């Protein structure tokens, strides 16, 4: 198909690798999860800048939401290793857009949508109690009940938004 470039790993190897990482994470400490640290980063700053607010906030006053811990170092490891790996496999490249975005608008539009989308998705993630790692992948790994409504909602709205914002397929027959 025109959209699929030659992948680094076959799909089954890539999936098994990720599944083994999940298994390792559960063996070591807890299931994979990324998004809580966005709250922790804000919480740590607020703790310095406005500790009265933090102390009066029933979520934020809990130490795990304003003190960097395991999850914080996990995200740092993720970032550093992703960067090093991208360099090693030739995927590191400074750029401001992607093929789907280029086929559907300007770089400026891409950056505005990226910002708004990031805002919406992190807000939603915390409301749902986890992201694609912490709710979706970890949820299926543990067969949690919460993963069922989460998965349906996430993919339904993900497909809807992708259709709204990226109607044109990049590559060969553009506009066809």
């Amino acid at each position, binding site marked *: 198909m025109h959209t699929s470039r030659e992948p680094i790993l076959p799909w089954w190897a890539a999936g098994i690798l990720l*599944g083994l990482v999940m298994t390792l994470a559960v063996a070591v400490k807890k299931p994979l999860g990324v998004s809580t640290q966005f709250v922790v980063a804000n919480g740590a700053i607020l703790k310095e800048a406005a500790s009265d607010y933090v102390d009066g906030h029933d979520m934020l006053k809990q130490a795990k939401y304003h003190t960097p811990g395991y999850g914080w170092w996990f995200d740092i490891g993720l970032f550093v290793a992703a960067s090093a790996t991208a360099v090693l496999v030739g995927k590191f490249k400074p750029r401001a857009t992607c093929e789907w975005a280029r086929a559907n608008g300007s770089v400026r539009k891409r950056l505005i949508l990226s910002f708004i989308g990031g805002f919406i998705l992190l807000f939603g993630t915390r409301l749902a109690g986890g992201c694609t790692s912490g709710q979706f992948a970890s949820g299926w790994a543990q067969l949690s009940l919460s993963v069922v409504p989460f998965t*349906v*909602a996430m993919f339904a709205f993900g497909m809807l938004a992708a259709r709204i914002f990226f109607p044109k397929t990049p590559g060969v027959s553009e506009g066809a």
Partner: protein
Amino acid sequence: MLSQMQILALGVGGVFGMALIVAELADPDRIIGTLRLKDFHAMRTIAMFVLTSMVGVWVLSQVGLAHLSIKPAVMTPVAVGGSLLGFGFGMTGFCPGTGLACAAAGRGDAWISVAGMFLGALAFIVLWPFIVPQLSDVWNYGQTTLPEFTGSPSWWWVGGFVGLGGLVLFVTRPRRK
């Protein structure tokens, strides 16, 4: 010096970051292509990820080595939050983990998106007292799993998903031309 906890966290986070790049989930074109049903590589990767995790975590829990953390099934915030997450996911091709990994791979749009995520977290903190405690009291099944909820053994679920999922992945596998 780093503590043992920090080293462990850096290590597990590190292998995840590495895997997100080589599995190409940290790639907005793959994600948008998947949500537009045009690119089946990432979808198959995600399915294989889920099935492998299910088996791995099930084995760990059978031998008593699993550190589980079941999220409470609070249906309203999970469904509403999942919808918002999905919408942002389809708008950008990023999620929190792949957004960080994409930023690390030099993508400026991912840096902008991560900045949006940071502000989204702040908005969540500010609005939390007005929404979350209220929503948590209704339609909440607690930290339950599908086997507990249905009163069935966990191996039925794992076996069923792996059997059915494996069959679908096998039958629909891409063939070399």
